[in-house]
């Protein structure tokens, strides 16, 4: 399987994502934001970081990069596009996934392990994962997902919620919501579920010496689903 990770000026999880994808068998290429063409890919990843320094609005300038025209076309024709953290913020700014990401409720950057419950498995990202709950890692300042009531209804009706913050047993309650996201939303899909945006970083959970190994589970499964 071929993957591509886009590097924007200010991306800083691009290498980590490259390491993770390669570890689980993807043939990964790094793509510069100023390029026009995407290499042939089965998966495009917009990595975490601070593209354009988060100036103006997180993700807004990166969403207008040259390469994003190709990424949007790729997504609209059904290609798999995954945005992690800042990548999620970029996806939101392109309109590929609905809603916005506001500053965390307590106005502070948060870096810690969290649990997320998989809300929908009818998609190539989470299909066949046995677990209901994964332990992931978050590191962000603007991960407070928000959308209008109408949008929320639509998202729920279409089963577009991918993962929710929860406790280790999968209980989705306010006290397990690290950033104030509406309905504890940690990640969502587009309608067709080929585009996934999520705040947690599975690429930081790929080794038992690190924060945990549930990221390994995620990547292995993703690769199998794409085969």
């Amino acid at each position, binding site marked *: 399987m071929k993957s591509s990770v886009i590097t924007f*000026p*200010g991306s*800083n*999880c691009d*290498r*980590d994502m490259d*390491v*993770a994808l390669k570890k689980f068998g993807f043939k990964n290429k790094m793509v510069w934001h*100023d390029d026009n063409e995407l290499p042939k890919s089965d998966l495009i990843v917009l990595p*975490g*970081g*601070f593209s*354009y*320094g*988060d*100036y103006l609005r997180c993700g807004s300038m990166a969403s207008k990069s040259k390469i994003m025209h190709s990424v949007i076309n790729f997504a609209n024709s059904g290609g798999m596009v995954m945005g992690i953290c800042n990548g999620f913020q970029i996806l939101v700014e392109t309109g590929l996934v609905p809603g916005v990401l506001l500053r965390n409720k307590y106005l*502070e*950057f*948060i*870096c*810690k392990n969290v649990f997320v419950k998989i809300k929908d498995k009818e998609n190539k990202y989470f299909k066949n994962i046995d677990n209901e709950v994964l332990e992931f*890692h978050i*590191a962000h*300042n603007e991960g407070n997902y928000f959308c209008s009531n109408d949008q929320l209804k639509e998202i729920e009706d279409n089963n577009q919620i991918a993962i929710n913050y929860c406790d280790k047993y999968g209980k989705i309650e306010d006290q397990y919501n690290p950033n104030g996201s509406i309905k504890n939303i940690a990640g969502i899909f587009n309608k067709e579920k080929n585009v996934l945006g999520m705040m947690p*970083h599975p*690429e*930081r959970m*790929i*080794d038992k*010496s*690190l*924060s945990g190994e549930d990221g390994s589970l995620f990547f292995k499964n993703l690769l199998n689903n794409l085969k």
Partner: protein
Amino acid sequence: MIVNEKVAIDHGLKKEEYVKICELLKRTPNITELGIFSAMWNEHCSYKSSRLHLKKLPTKGKKVIQGPGENAGVIDIEDNDAIVFKIESHNHPSFIEPYQGAATGVGGIMRDVFTMGARPIANLNSIHFGSTQHKKTKNLLRGVVHGIGGYGNCMGVPTIAGQTSFDSSYNGNILVNAMTLGLVKKDKIFYSKAAGINKPVIYVGSKTGRDGIHGASMASASFDDKIEEKKPTVQVGDPFTEKLLLEACLELMAGDSIIAIQDMGAAGLTSSSIEMASKGNLGIEINLNRVPCREAKMSPYEIMLSESQERMLIVLENGKEEQAKKIFDKWNLDFAVIGKTTKSKKIELYFDNEKVADIPVNTLVENSPMYDRKWKKAKLPKKNNIKKEDIKHLKIIDVLKKILANPNVCSKEWIWEQYDHTVMGDTIQKPGGDAGVVRVHGTDKAVAASVDSSAVYCWAHPLTGGKQVVCESFRNLIAVGAKPVAITNCLNFGSPENQDNMGEFVECVQGIGEASEYLKFPVVSGNVSFYNQTKDQGIKPTPTIGGVGLIKDYKNMVTMEFKEADNLVLVIGKTEGHIDQSLFARNILDEKNGPPPEVNLFNEKNNGETLLKLIDNNLIKSAHDVSLGGIITAVAKMCIKGKMGINIKKPKYLINEIEYLFAEDQGRYIIEINKKNFKKVADILNKNAVHFDELGTIIENELYINDKTKVTIDELSTSNKSWLKNYMSK
């Protein structure tokens, strides 16, 4: 503007220094030249009060590739890998403007590291604030933490460890010390020594603005009532530009076009150009009209003294300009050829076709003032006699809970959860342990780092305190299974013009020197920050030590949380019951006098090295050094982190229970071992003449002391974890 003695004094120069400048130049300097002299001759840049004493520090060792004098120190970690590291203060600006002050402190130290060709792989910080009751403390703490996070997180470099303390002596002068470690190939280290004549001098990075002018001079003076007016001397950071600068520099460094490179830190273009020329024994000629400026009509004086951030100066090989420019264009950064190296050994500046400065380089560097300041030797204070009736009524568990919730002991989770500590995917020991540990990417090796300071001990007796801090750093590295390699120091003191403060400096440095010599733990880089003083009130002497150690196989790393019920817990090192200057004495008994615990370097080295042997033999399940709050505090933290309990039986020494549990004797560790390995462990300890006590057995959920006192770990955990969160949310 006409330059005279008054103008010179307004620039922070002393009368006799101004006279010396006129003598060296054989004329009166113009205003630009005076600005340059004031920037180079201030305490911050010239080390004029400290140089004499810093010379005595041991700086050499088998593993030392580069000692002090470069942008940062470099140590060998084998296989052609090297670690570049340094700690630096940003105290004065952080008090005036906490967010930007702290942020640019972090940005500056990272630049020092990647200037040498190393990719930063870890950040640490040591931050000190006034009393928790002081009206400014909360805002300063919040601002500093946001600033450190704001810069480091954006750069994508994990902040893996740190230290936070509160003491009323920092009410008017907080301390912000930032440390960075970078990884480089041994044969690709870059230095700041210029070489060759007529080589292009290149300016890269951000544009030059009017921010930070006189920053270095501001950091070389005490504070008074008008500090608010100094806000414009604080630099403004842009971590995004620095991230681009990092990537662009590393891309250029992959080739072979750079002769020398130097970041523009304190005193900006002035110190960077002069340092490169001085080290290369060359001259530099700069056309200031070519310097990219952010604001219109900047004068030569402003351009030379600006401390705008995220800028570098490079001496390039001839003919490589186009190729280099392409890289900086790609990263959207300014790139300008602003001058060339010359054989004149002078710094010559041109602006609007006029020569605006003409100064021999040696007058600025070698001829800069050096003072042998007067200093007073400190006496070792008399021991207190702690009376039995003073401690008889104390309940151990109540005292323990108070200590665990003490601002200087409590969990700092509120702080480090705001720092990205996992980016780069190699952090294998997060903040909250004895040391932070990151893997050397793609290898089995790992590097451990810790920052430590013990202002109270240094204040009570500077010589002992200086030794103790180095030992604590040594211990923290060993506790995670790392072999200590070298240190960097950040020496934060009051005014060197005050004999007591100068004495504290001299004796702390002597202590640091003695300990690092004995432990073979050399000083490879550092920074001095004097004048941490408001009016006549100086801070407690606070030398901060940043220690770095190597773990050959990261799978052998040790952590501090208790692992398994039924395992045995031992104390390595002898407990004499030293209570004076302990957290217990100061905060529970309210006794602030007396000597700090004695440092025995032989025991320190022997105990540490023996523990490393135990770790190498895979006999250690967890380990933690004993510091503030003594044995019981160390054990309680291991319980809290591991969510396990312990059944403690005090050994049958003559000293009483309270002294045994709360004393802060040095050279001690708590270790957890499997019962069946007890004999093996005891043999190794005995063979090496290391004293040890059997302290107890690990159990579930509760902490028992001598079967009569108990408390649940949940309760201890709440005491430890809630204080800071509550304080900051009030």
